[in-house]
């Protein structure tokens, strides 16, 4: 499985889902990501995705990610590989027709966390 999901909390108390990605992402993997995003505790929540070098997305997997915009408040993606960044950029371009994207890319986890914390107020209250 190229994804590892961990539930985390920032120092200031913001809950976020950390997703570590590595390797080839298939349609099934993308669906697993989607199922996490759709869980009541994470729907419209904060997500930090740390994408390793060499991560690649199958064509069908990309299609799933392009449908997730409206289900995520903020997705901070930490990526250091230029190839992976270019792939995510292209996925973003293709997803833009489906509304504003909640994703921003960073090169460090600290920056990504700071941005996620800044978006904490946009997360709807949990029942």
């Amino acid at each position, binding site marked *: 499985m190229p994804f590892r999901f961990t539930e985390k909390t920032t120092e200031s108390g913001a809950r976020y889902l950390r997703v570590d990605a590595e390797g080839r992402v298939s349609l099934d993997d993308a669906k697993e990501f989607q199922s996490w995003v759709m869980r009541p505790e994470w729907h419209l929540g904060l997500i930090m995705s740390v994408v390793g070098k060499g991560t690649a997305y199958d064509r069908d997997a990309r299609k799933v990610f392009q449908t997730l915009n409206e289900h995520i408040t903020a997705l901070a993606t930490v990526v250091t*590989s230029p*190839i992976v960044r270019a792939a995510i950029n292209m996925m973003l371009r293709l997803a833009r027709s489906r509304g504003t994207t909640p994703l921003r890319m960073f090169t460090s986890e600290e920056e990504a966390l700071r941005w996620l914390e800044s978006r904490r107020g946009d997360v709807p209250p949990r029942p």
Partner: protein
Amino acid sequence: MAIDPERVERVLAVMVDAAEGNYETRVPLSDVEDEMLEIEVGINFLLDELTHQRARNESHQRALVAALSTPIIVLWPGVLALPLIGHFDRGRAMEVTATLLARVRAERASHVILDLTGLAELAGDTMPALLRMVQAMRLLGARCLLTGMHPRSAQQVVELGIELRGVPTLAQVSDALAQVMSEKGVFKTGT
């Protein structure tokens, strides 16, 4: 931005391949952060999309050809007609038989009229393939009738010494339908 001529060459080579219908090659990528990388990745995404679209179109086309090559018509409840068109060999007979058997069972058909008007000249294995199909129908309780055999095909059947015992052959589909209706007691032949 200075572009490495070798990278341009690699992109062009992939585009030439794609123009010739080969969507399998991809632009090799290297971890160099520049605008060119975005273009290279974009081309690879585009090729993924083209590969997918082509596979989907081919699958639709196969389904369409299969549907058109077995146009089974219900002439009357329990009476099916299948006009055979083009080349009919052992392989096609197997496909057609599978589709026809499913319809015979679904429709609880008692009769199947196989119309040969649109068949090209009978190949050596056409009649044996047809007869196997007829036998398969019989096992499901459906009786086959042949119509529209060309004179040359009839001659071939005789020359090949093929026995069509128990398989009525009639000139036209309407003749076969009249015979079936008569057997079913719906109306009498010639009235």
